[in-house]
Every structure is written in structure tokens, then in C-alpha cells.
């Protein structure tokens, strides 16, 4: 029994550590600022970072294969701009939302194909995707376009109250992230597709020799990231009720940081989406703590995230060394 617990700790050390860090930061914040102890603050983490969570989930799967997706922020901007303009022109929300998903998946698949068949490095290919997506967003509209569509407004302004917690609520869009998280957990742990992702990240050549559909999975993983980015964009545009080319600048970096802090290695094959969840929550908590402080400016978030990423990597390498010795 002890042996089993030991093994569980070693294999999942990264994620557990992230969980512990999250709890620590959250409770420290609660001690410093008593108003932070309200349950709503916890749910606000999910509300405010719903897009980041979605994008980070897609990013996790891509990074698990040893790749990277720099285009996510651009896709969010593109989706928001395109949605805003289309909704303003009177197109129904029930057409716009699926269309955005199609755009996300299409762009993702295109990048995946360029990476796999044209043998372009993921960094460069998704960088191009970023330029293209954000570039198209700028072309669609250079200024912020407000969304006045009824469906969007309804979703954005209708709180869903949480049972057992008085005066605490979330929005419908907040649920999309956790739902995709469950989907991602299912995919990564219970499907051949997910296990192949881990195989590719572990040793791509071996995966090919083992007869796994490496090419197909690699393209699909980028399509999945595109899907998550599109969902993130939809959620973003609902939350802010606007479309703007300059939305979500730098979000790809926040997503990568969250994934790395959550224990997924950039080399692939190691890590999981649950860790990413905590990585995102840590990011949100830091922002909250700074907001509650009020005096420290937002750029402290950046420094804090930087330090945390550094610590997370340090912890990861310690675990890696321990694993090798055991």
C-alpha cells in the first residue's frame, strides 16, 4: 500500500505540487485580505479566466505531443472581431457561434497540416497562424465593436446561482471551460487518441514504428487547440460584449506558463490537463490578490507569474531527477 502511494506521488508529483501552490497562494491571500475569503472570489477565478482555461486546455494537448501553439490569442481576437461584426450586421447568434468554431478548427487543422506534411517547426507555423489570425482581426475592424445581440447579452448578464453558497453565482460561459476540461480528461486518459498523444510526446519515432497513426493525431491535436481557442473567443466576446483586434494579446504566453506551471513538460509525454487547471487558477489568484491589494500595479502580476514559472520548472527538474533514481 505504501509502495502504491509512493508511486502515485512520484508519478503525479508535478500536478500535486501545483495544487499545493494554488492552495497556499489562495489561503495566504485570504489571510491578508479577509474580503478574499468570500466564496464568490473562488468562483470569480473561473469567471475571469474562462477563456484562458479553454485556451490552456487546447495548449496542453499540443504541448503533450512536443509541439506548441502560439496562435491562440490571435484566434480569440479574430473570433471576437468576426462575431461582433457579423452580429452587428444582424446575423443570428446561432449561426455565428458554430461558424466561429468552424473557423477555429479549420485554422488549427491548416497549421497542423503545415507542421506535419510540410515539416515546418511548430513554433514558426503557429507564429504564422498568430500573425494571420490577428492580422485578419485587424482587417475586420480596427476599433472595438460592441455586441448588442440579444442572445449574447442574455448569456452575459444572467447569473446562475450556486446551490449551498448564498449570493454566489457564475455565468453560463463559465461552465464551458470545466466542461471542456472533462472532455480533455476523457480524451487524454480514456481514448486511443489521447494515449497516442502521450506516445508521440514520449518518442515520436517509436510511436510511428509501433504503427500508431502519428500523422493524423498530430494534425488533430492542432485542430483541437483551434477548437478550444474558438470556444475561448466566443466566451471572451460574450463576457466583454465586444469584438476587438487587440484582445487577448499575450494570452498564448499566459497559457504556456499555466501549462508549464501545471507540470506539463515542453518536451512532451509528461503532464496532464488537471495540472493546467491549477496553473490557470494560480494565475487568477495572483491577479485577484493584486486587485485586492489595490496599490501594487498590474505589472507585478507579470513578475509573479515569471517567478512562479521558474519555481515550477525547478520543482519539475527535481521530480525528474528523483524519478530517475527511484
Amino acid at each position, binding site marked *: 500500500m505504501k509502495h502504491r502511494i509512493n508511486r502515485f506521488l512520484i508519478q503525479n508529483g508535478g500536478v500535486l505540487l501545483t495544487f499545493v501552490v494554488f492552495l497556499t497562494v489562495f489561503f495566504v491571500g485570504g489571510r491578508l485580505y479577509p474580503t478574499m475569503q468570500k466564496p464568490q472570489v473562488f468562483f470569480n477565478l473561473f469567471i475571469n479566466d474562462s477563456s484562458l482555461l479553454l485556451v490552456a486546455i487546447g495548449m496542453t494537448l499540443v504541448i503533450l505531443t512536443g509541439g*506548441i501553439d502560439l496562435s491562440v490569442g490571435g484566434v480569440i481576437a479574430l473570433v471576437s472581431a468576426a462575431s461582433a461584426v457579423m452580429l452587428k450586421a444582424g446575423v443570428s447568434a446561432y449561426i455565428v457561434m458554430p461558424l466561429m468554431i468552424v473557423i477555429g478548427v479549420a485554422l488549427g487543422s491548416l497549421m497542423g497540416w*503545415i507542421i506535419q506534411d*510540410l*515539416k*515546418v*517547426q511548430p*513554433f*514558426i*507555423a503557429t*507564429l*504564422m*497562424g498568430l*500573425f*494571420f489570425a*490577428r*492580422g*485578419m482581426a*485587424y*482587417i475586420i475592424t*480596427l476599433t472595438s465593436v460592441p455586441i448588442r445581440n440579444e442572445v449574447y447579452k442574455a448569456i452575459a448578464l444572467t447569473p446562475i446561482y450556486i446551490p449551498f453558497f448564498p449570493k454566489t453565482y457564475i455565468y453560463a460561459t463559465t461552465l464551458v471551460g470545466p466542461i471542456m476540461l472533462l472532455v480533455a480528461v476523457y480524451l487524454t486518459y480514456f481514448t486511443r487518441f489521447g494515449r497516442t498523444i502521450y506516445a508521440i510526446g514520449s518518442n515520436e519515432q517509436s510511436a510511428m514504428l509501433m504503427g500508431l497513426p502519428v500523422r493524423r493525431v498530430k494534425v488533430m491535436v492542432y485542430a483541437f487547440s483551434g477548437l478550444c481557442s474558438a470556444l475561448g473567443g466566443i466566451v471572451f466576446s460574450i463576457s466583454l460584449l465586444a469584438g476587438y*483586434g487587440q484582445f487577448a494579446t499575450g494570452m498564448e*504566453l*499566459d497559457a*504556456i*506558463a499555466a501549462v*508549464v506551471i501545471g507540470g506539463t513538460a*515542453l*518536451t512532451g509525454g509528461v503532464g496532464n490537463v488537471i495540472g493546467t487547471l491549477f496553473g490557470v487558477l494560480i494565475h487568477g489568484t495572483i491577479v485577484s490578490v493584486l486587485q485586492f491589494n489595490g496599490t501594487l*500595479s498590474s*505589472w*507585478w*502580476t*507579470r*513578475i509573479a*507569474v*515569471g*517567478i512562479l*514559472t*521558474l519555481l515550477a*520548472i*525547478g520543482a519539475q*527538474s527535481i521530480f525528474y531527477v528523483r524519478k530517475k533514481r527511484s
Partner: protein
Amino acid sequence: MNQKSLFKRFRESQIFWPLVAWIIILVFNAIIDPTFFRLGIIQDPTYGKHLYGNLVDIFNNGAPLMLVAIGMTLVIATGGIDLSVGAVIAISAAMGAVLINPALGNKLISNEILTKNATNTPLTIIILADLLAGTLCGLWNGLLVSRGKIQPMVATLILMVAGRGIAQLITNGQIMTIYYSPYFWFGNGYILGLPVSIYIVVLVLIIGWVLVRKTSIGLFIETVGTNAKSAYYSGINEKNVKLFAYMFCGFCGAIAGLILSSYVHSADGNNNGLNYELDAILAVVMGGTLMTGGRFNLLASAIGAVVIWTFTVTVYHLGVPANALLAAKAILVLVVVLLYSDYMRRFINRFTPKRRGAEHETSN
């Protein structure tokens, strides 16, 4: 010793294709607008007689990117990457602004003193402080990568994210305007009719060339980038080689920050050098250095940066609205990527007779 014809060596060197790309864009410009190349001489009240025209602007405005690309080349050649150069630019600019500013901190001060054309610190100290700051950032990155064994993308990501925060910290969150006119000389001044920034770039290129080709550092960088294990087995201190590369990159970033803040007369922690790292990586790739590391060429990367900048100027010149620049850049990346992709290389190789050695292992 093997002597190839000068032309053949030129054709096979890394600067060939970026140069060709640049010439193509220039020719394109000339066709669309024959006045594109017009160079004039004007008498400027502050800086005297100097050349002006599109070509001059390209080099003057493109100088920071050229510098960053030169620095980035060494890092990429060791098989790494430096995402923090934009942040280094911001930090360097912030340092300059803060050291000049007589109103360090939040002290209440009259507008007159604030906008005075004077500096709190001598210019030479400012330059040294800037360079030191940049090199220290490079040292930080280099230590994380070489000693901490952290992947370059993640290691430099940390500074990229935290660095802008640090820049904001230095300027106390404000966008600082600089009023000290001698500082403006770097980005706006002229020597012998040509912009100062070009001289700086050439100087850095020469320094870089001497450092890597007149010593064994260049050879070691290429070795480490191709096969770090073999480099170690051959007695090369690959840790220090990588450290050097990152420090040089930080150094170049600092100079770029100096020129940039001098050009715009201000330091803005949020926007200085934004997206420079991506453009710089693109310039290095265009210059023929592989992202996996190995052979590199500083001049080729500089030319790559010029190509990117010329492309930008061309797009504006064509009347394409500013908001379409990014999308146009995506097409540029696509073209570069296709040209350097495996398929294209093989396709082009069919047209150029190359001598082949025995490429196959004949036994296990």
C-alpha cells in the same frame, strides 16, 4: 586549400537568398513607384546636412531589429531561443529614461524641471548602465539554460513575462518622456549624412564578427548547436559557450533599446520592442540559420531583418491600411517557411548540380 570562385562562394553562402529576397522587394517597389528610391539631401536644423529618403528610413528604423536579430543569431545557433529580447529592450529604455530624469521617483516636481533639457546622470554612464542591464539579462537567461538545464523557450519566457513588469517597476509604471536632446542623437542623428544607427549596427556587426570568427567561439557555437554532446566530448565547455551567446543577445537588445527609446524620445514598458522577438526569430530563419542550431551568419540575419522592415515599408507604401500589416506579415512568414522547407530545398537542388559524397552508411 580549396579555392572556389568568388561568385560560387557567394552563391552558396547564407547571405545569398536574403539578399535576393531584398532585391526582389526593392525591384517590386521601384516598379510600382519609381520615386521609391529617391534620395535627397536636406539641411536639418538640429543635425545638419544629411541624406533622406525611403532607403535611409528603412535602415534607420530597422536598426533596432537588425541588432536584435544579430544577437538572436548566436542564441539560435546554439540550438536555443531568446523570447525575452522585447523585454530587454523595454528594460534598457526604462533605465535610460529613469537615469536621465531629474525627477526620480514620485517626488512632486514642477513641469519646468521635468521637461528640462538636462540629465541627472552623464550620458556615458547611462550608456554603460543600459549595456550592463541588457548583458545581465542575458546572463540570467544564459545561466538558466546552461546551468539550470532549463529549456531555452521556457527559461527566456520567464524574463519575457516578468521583464516588462521589471521595466514598469523601474519607471514606476509611467511612460516616461525624455527631454535630454543629446540622447536623441542615437536614433535621430547623422554622421557624414548617414543615420547614426547604421554606424552602430555596422559597429556591432564588426564586433560580433571579430568575436566569433577571429576566435574559436564561432566554431564552438556551431559545434554546440549541431551536437552538444559531441562538443562536450571534444573538450568544449558548452555551458560557457551558451552563456556567451545569451549574454551577447542581451547586449544587442540593450543597444536596440537605447536606439529605440532615443528615436521615440520615450520609454514605455508596455510597448517598447513589442513583438520584436518574433520578428527577430523570423529574420534569423530568413538568414538561413536553422532553428535547430549549427551554422550561422550574422550578416545574413541582419539582411533578414532589413527584408522584414522593407516589407513593412512596402506594405505601407502600397497604401495597404495599417491594420492589414499583420496579415501581410503572415504571408511573408508563409513564403519564407515554404522556401526553407524540405520540399522546396529538394526542388531547388534539382536545378543546382551538387557534388555528393557517399551519403549512406554501408554497414551497421
